[in-house]
Structures are given as C-alpha cells and as structure tokens.
C-alpha cells in the first residue's frame, strides 16, 4: 500500500499519542503528495500539511502604486472581490464619469465570499475615470475610480 491514502483523524491521533511519549517536539511525515508536520504546542499538538513543490508564500504587493502616485483623489476597494458598478444586472450604474460624489455616496459594490460590501466614495468631487472593469476581480486597495476634487 502506497502512502497515497489520506491519513484519517485516527491516524493523526495515533501519531500524536506516540510522539507524546517521546521527548521529541516534532515529527515530519512525507508522503507522495504532501508533508504532514506534527508539532508540540503547549499542552497539546498541532498538525500542518504542506505541499513540497510550493514556493514560499510571498506577500502580494498592491500593484497600483503608479496610479496612486498621480495627483487627484482615488476610490479604492475595501476588500478583494468582484467589482460591480450597479446594484444588480441591468440596473443603472451607481455613478458615471461626471457624477458628483460626496464621502458617503455609494459608488459600487464589491462581492467577496458571497457577501456584498458597498463602496463609498470617501471623498468629494466629480468622477473622472472608472478604472476597474465591471464584474471583474479587484484586489484589496485596488483603485476603482479617480475623482477630481470639487
């Protein structure tokens, strides 16, 4: 039997019970697909699975610095998610280029994990450009619109 079969909760509990009787704090179990790391943690133990070929996780930098560096005001996405210009398909957009906005004007919604979050302008002025594309993914802090100060 290859090590391809997944480990059950009982398997993990048994490994923990064995490790607990030793002076060791850590056990790494490598299978054909993943590595399971059992680690002593205070009174108990933790389990962590990792996939060998993974590059170390790198923090994703916001790629919007060039836009932000320009003059003028910008409206950013509060969350990563899908950007929508209108409350529902076929409805009129919240704002268009040329619309006047106040800090509490709702200008878009971002859908993240089935939850809709209203995006408010956060500034006063006239919408100059809608940067993000409707119904497409945006990252957190991505520039959605540019606003000319009133």
């Amino acid at each position, binding site marked *: 039997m290859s090590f*391809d*079969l*997944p480990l*059950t*909760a009982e398997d*993990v*509990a048994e*490994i*923990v*019970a064995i490790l*607990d009787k030793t002076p060791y704090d850590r056990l790494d179990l490598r299978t054909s*697909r*993943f590595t399971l790391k*059992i*680690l002593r*943690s*205070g*009174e*108990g*133990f*933790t*389990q*962590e*699975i*990792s*996939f060998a070929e*993974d590059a*170390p*996780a790198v923090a*994703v930098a916001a790629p919007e610095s060039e836009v932000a560096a320009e003059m003028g005001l910008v409206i950013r996405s509060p*969350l*990563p*998610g*899908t950007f929508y210009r209108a409350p529902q398909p076929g409805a009129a957009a919240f704002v268009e280029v040329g619309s006047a906005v106040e800090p509490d004007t709702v200008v878009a919604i971002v859908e*993240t*994990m*089935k*939850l809709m*979050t209203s995006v408010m302008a956060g500034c006063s002025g006239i919408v100059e450009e809608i940067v993000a594309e409707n119904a497409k*993914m945006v990252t957190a802090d991505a520039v959605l619109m540019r606003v000319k100060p009133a």
Partner: protein
Amino acid sequence: MIRRLFIANRGEIAWRILRTAKRLGMTAILGVSEADVESFAARMADEVVLVGGAPSAESYLNIEKVVAAAKGAGADAVHPGYGFLSENAAFGRAVREAGMIFVGPEIASLEAMGDKLMARKAGIAAGLPVVPGGEAADKESARAQAEVTGYPLLIKAVSGGGGRGMKRVDAPAQLDSQIDMAMAEALAAFGDSRIYVERFIGRGRHVEVQVLGDGETAIHLGTRDCSIQRRFQKLVEEAPAFGIPAARHGAITSAAVKFAEHLNYRGAGTVEFLVDATDFSFYFLEMNARIQVEHPVTEAITGVDLIEQQLLVADGQKLTLEQGFVEFDGHAIEVRINAEDFEKDFRPSPGRAVVARWPAGPGIRVDTHIAAGGAVPPYYDSLIGKVIVHGRDRAEAVKKLAAALETLRIEGIATTALLHRKIAADARFVAGGVDTKFFEAFAHG
C-alpha cells in the same frame, strides 16, 4: 458498483468525500474552477477536470458544465456535496439523464422540499407537529391567518432562507406594514413575494436529526443541536442535543424517521425541528436532502461514515445498518472556522494562510482544505475548516474544545478561531442547552 466518482464541489467537503471514495477503492475525480486548480482537494484527487471560470456561476453552479465535465471524465456517479447544486432537482435530473448516478435522494424528495411551504405541507401530511400558522396568499388572508395564529408571530418568505423576508410582528397594528416589507424583501431576494404566517417561539433551539433511508426503511443516527447561529448561519454544532428529556428526545428522533419513511427517502438527510427551550415541545421545520456541514459530530458519536452510507444507497444497495445496531458514544462538538474578521463585523478575509497549524490529538478531528500557504479565494464561502472534538460526555468535549482551540494557529488571514475560544469559555455555553438567541446576547457582552 460505483468505480469512478465525480465530486461536484470544492473546499473541505470535496476533500471529505475524496477520503471516503479512496478508502472504498473508487477513483476520485474532482471538478474544479479556474481558482481551485491548485487547491488542497485538487492535489489529493486521483484526477482533476476543469469545469469553468472562477465565479461559481461559470463552474460549480453551472449544471451543463458540471454534467459535461463528469460525463467527459467517464464518471459513473456524481456526488454534489452541500451547497451549490446539491439540492437542485434540475441538476439531479440532468445527472441521471446523462446516464450517471446522482448521489442524493429521489428527485421527488428534492422537489417535495422545494420551498418552506411545501416542506410544511409534507410535514403535516406525514403527521408531524408544525409551528401553528399557515399560508397567506395575500394581505387579506395574512390578516385572517394572523387572527388565528395569535401574537407575537413571524411572517416568513415561502422561498426564503438566511433570514431574509422574515419579520416579527408583536401586535395587530404593525401587521400591514410588516406584510408589505416582508413581501417586498421576498420579491427582491427570491423573485417570489409569497409569504406565510407562523407563531413566534420566544426561546427556540435548532435541533436536527440525521436520517438514512434506502427507499423502504429509514433509521436515525441521533440528534444535533445547532442553536448557536449568527444571522441564521450556524457557528457551533453538537451531537447529541444536550439537556432534552429522554422521552422528548426519543419523540423527536421517531418523528424524523416517520417523515423519512413518509417520503420513501433514499440516502442521507437531515430533518430539522424547532424545539421550545422552555417546555421542549417540538415542531417540524424542513428536511435538508443532502450531507450537512455538521455531519462529523454525528460520525464522531456513532462511528458511522455518512459519505460511505450515501454512496452505498446511491449504488442501489439496501441499508445494512439497523436501528438497533446504532450505538451512541459520548458527546461531540464542531466549530466552524471561517475566514472572517469577527472583530470587524465578520468582514470576509480572503488571502493566503501562511501558517495553518490545526489542532491534533486523541478525540480531535479537523476537516479542512487549508494547508500551509493555502489560498482562500474571494469567490466562495468563507468556511476554511472545522474542528471537531469528541469526549466521553459534554463536559469533557467542552474542555477538549477549549484546549484544541488554544493550539490552533492560522496566520495571513483573519479567522473566527478566537471567537470560538471565547464561546468555549462562556459560562452559558459551558452549562449547555443554549437557545438561538445565545449568540446575539454573547456578541453584545
């Protein structure tokens, strides 16, 4: 004989189904969206098929694409998991028309539970107690029904879910305006303005019964209590339901079996009840015709693999389990760890879990799809894992839960882990048997 099982889902439940499929010697084929090509479940699957784009509507919710992917992969059965298309009668029909087994109940059972009013009618037909109330086709009949039902009452949307379109009315003077609002909300949210009226139960507990049926006989695998909810989303689930007098507990499980047999139910299902926390009278609510998120607490106390039972029945076999063989051992509690910042009004927190150390040890089970460096895409549900503990009794399970949550460490995304640590330390939770108002009171100190 199911040899090639197509899993039409993602996340922890995809991995959960995969585990049993592999143990049973089946080839596990996973249909993924573009966002899930490198997911945990995809790395564990025997075969991976791309279904479509990252948004659910282009992949996991797209009947045509899912059926084509399963058919193209040469699958002989499709397991829909929970959520997505799991209770979609059109999907079940399409899978069967394509010559594959749908791992779920008969289409008629799915249709019988189509909306809350149909479920209520089926409950009445099966002879189960339902919450006093009834249909209200228009304002006039809603008023008449309210007279009979009495106050306080709830107006509910027939096609409702998640609390939308639900209004509490305390006195006749508020009735008209609340009917208007409920109908408008129901129309906007579900495209169906129909409402019905129910008596409001002040202190209710959400108690459900796991049932298994093969079309002829049905058995139960005990109760679960899911009263700890936020905005009708379950946070903590336990098995069995704690502190319900034995005679009442037995009446609830018997009613569930009676209902499953009334439907000639095939497969695993959950019959939901509202239990009055003051006098333990109980009312049938609806039946979920699929595997539930909280199924592991039942598995913990019975030792039965529910996915295996689903696959056996779907394969046309009779239940080999008999009621008398089902033994209940101890108490189990599950907490849902969501990628949400509970200190910022449960704001979603997609991203990458740089560290994903889950608790481990005797009596601890973790069902997750998040490994070290694991991605939590913004497109789907925020559930990243479930911690399930099993103890000899409830007190031991609560202690084990608190200890397990102490060790849990996820970095890179916000999670509800700390919230669950606080719940596990709450005196009302430790005492047990809280009602559905618990979380609101807990959250406000």
